[in-house]
């Protein structure tokens, strides 16, 4: 057994495989080598398999006529237009779903998070039930439920569900709004067909119901955690100044809780953006479902996949950048 003095021997020069200056680089070298071999193997196969099929990376198909239609689009699109226009229309639909979903889920989640600190025991219990129920049921199942069980079983025509200003029918959701000539107008039944300034398809409505209620539950937990991070003394101080429950929450607690809430929101927003790809299950034509159709028609798996991945990574990046900006703003204001 080596003596401790041995290491203090001025002539100690360890062999390289035991030298602590060498070993870390050795480990990394081996890992790098293995990784390179793996990548080379996979890429080699990819190139080999694609060249034998004559399908090596090419983007010319993007200009070919798509030949499929998209039922609801923000940017104009029809079957005669090229694939790339279809993908753009799909992206626009995804963005529409994500942005609407973000706003809705934030509102619902914040309300539910605040309600879980309510004085009213019933309300607290109800929000807990909401969160615990929704979080333990798969989102896809919820979306399918909303679409097939709720929205597709709505009646049509005059039997449609009517709330003042809103009509829920199998043919769509009709909302009151500013119509032609900037007049406020309500949904109307014209020849058995509903007409209104704002119409949402049931597919979009189902997607939004599912996404907002699902993400809302997670955001409620984030908000609740944020509120919990504010010391109890703050509540007591504000109450002793005569502020009510809502005023305390709104002016004292929430501003401080934001420091904890904003990073949590970032995660939830990104997962909402990714979850929007489940739209394909309820027949809403988003980026993913356009990509799937395109793949089935052209067989261009790799290119379609790269586009799809690039779009989602870019979306995540934008959300993260915005939320990091917001985070910085919140943290500075804190001081």
């Amino acid at each position, binding site marked *: 057994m080596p003596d*401790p003095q041995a290491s203090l021997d001025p002539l*100690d020069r*360890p062999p390289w495989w035991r030298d602590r200056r060498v070993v870390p680089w050795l480990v990394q070298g081996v890992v790098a080598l293995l990784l390179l071999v793996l990548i080379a193997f996979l890429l080699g196969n990819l190139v080999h398999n694609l060249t034998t099929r004559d399908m090596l990376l090419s983007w010319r198909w993007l200009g070919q006529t798509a030949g499929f239609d998209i039922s609801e689009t923000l940017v104009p699109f029809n079957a005669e237009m090229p694939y790339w226009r279809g993908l753009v229309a799909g992206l626009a639909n995804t963005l529409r779903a994500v942005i609407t979903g973000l706003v809705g889920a934030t509102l619902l989640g914040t309300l539910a998070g605040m309600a879980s600190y309510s004085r009213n025991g019933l309300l607290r219990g109800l929000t807990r039930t909401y969160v615990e129920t929704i979080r333990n049921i798969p989102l896809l199942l919820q979306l399918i439920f909303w679409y097939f069980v709720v929205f597709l079983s709505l009646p049509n025509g005059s039997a449609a569900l009517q709330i003042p200003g809103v009509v829920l029918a199998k043919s769509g959701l009709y909302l009151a709004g500013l119509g032609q000539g900037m007049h406020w107008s309500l949904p109307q039944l014209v020849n058995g067909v509903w007409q209104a300034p704002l119409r949402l398809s049931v597919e979009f409505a189902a997607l939004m119901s599912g996404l907002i209620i699902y993400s809302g539950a997670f955001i409620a937990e984030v908000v609740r955690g944020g509120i919990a991070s504010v010391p109890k003394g703050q509540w007591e101080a504000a109450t002793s100044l005569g502020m009510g429950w809502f005023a305390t929450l709104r002016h004292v607690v929430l501003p401080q809780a934001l420091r904890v809430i904003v990073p949590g929101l970032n995660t939830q927003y990104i997962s909402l953006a990714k979850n929007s790809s489940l739209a394909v299950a309820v027949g809403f034509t988003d980026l993913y479902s356009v990509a799937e159709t395109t793949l089935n028609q052209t067989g261009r798996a790799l290119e379609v996949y790269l586009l799809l991945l690039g779009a989602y990574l870019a979306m995540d990046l934008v959300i993260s950048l915005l939320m990091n900006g917001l985070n910085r703003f919140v943290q500075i204001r804190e001081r």
Partner: protein
Amino acid sequence: MTSSPNNLVIEARGVQKWYPNGYHALRGVDLSVHRGEVVVVMGPSGSGKSTFIRTFNALEGSIRIDDISLGNDLRQIDAIRREVGMVFQQFNLFPHLTVLDNLVLAPTLVRGRSRTEVQAQALSLLDRVGIKEQAQKFPGQLSGGQQQRVAIARALCMEPRILLFDEPTSSLDPEMVREVLDVMRQLAQEDITMVVVTHEVKFAEQVAHRVVLMAEGNVVEEAPPAQFFKNPKHERTRRFLDQIL
């Protein structure tokens, strides 16, 4: 191997240490420790005491002695760690193991000894530091003084040749300091080589063979306790003593 006639256990000459951020923490420290000796290291905060005694345990890297890099042989580093025990300011007991398992873990894993044998030894060590009854408890259930005594027993259980203490009493309440110092005193009488970083002057006066003052990454003064405290040679030592006495 340099086995000197007078039983030199630690011989550090010109030890240098740079932290990754470029800070030059040790600037040529010289120190020799003989078998059975108790050396107390003192010095102002940030002078490099912790850094220095951790070099013995190879927890810090890039030691250089006389311009030759040392301590880069992984096998020797492991060997040193087996032979050198260390007691930390923050105890660093393993919270997920019982007190007994804290002691048993290393001897069984590192020295490959049988569990029953080590357990018997561990119990007698716990008895020696006065907390045999707590063997089955978890560290979180003990007081600070008890935890530090467990930490000492844990280090002893590896039967080290040298025991290093880095401010073992600094994070203890005053009434617990004594129980830990008593254990250390007892150890000192048992001929264990000890290097102790501490500001307990009384302990140094009674137990130490030598007291070392470190400042700005250097050893400034090295003397027997009587001389160190009553009649220091260096101006820097005098200033330091003025502050702590």
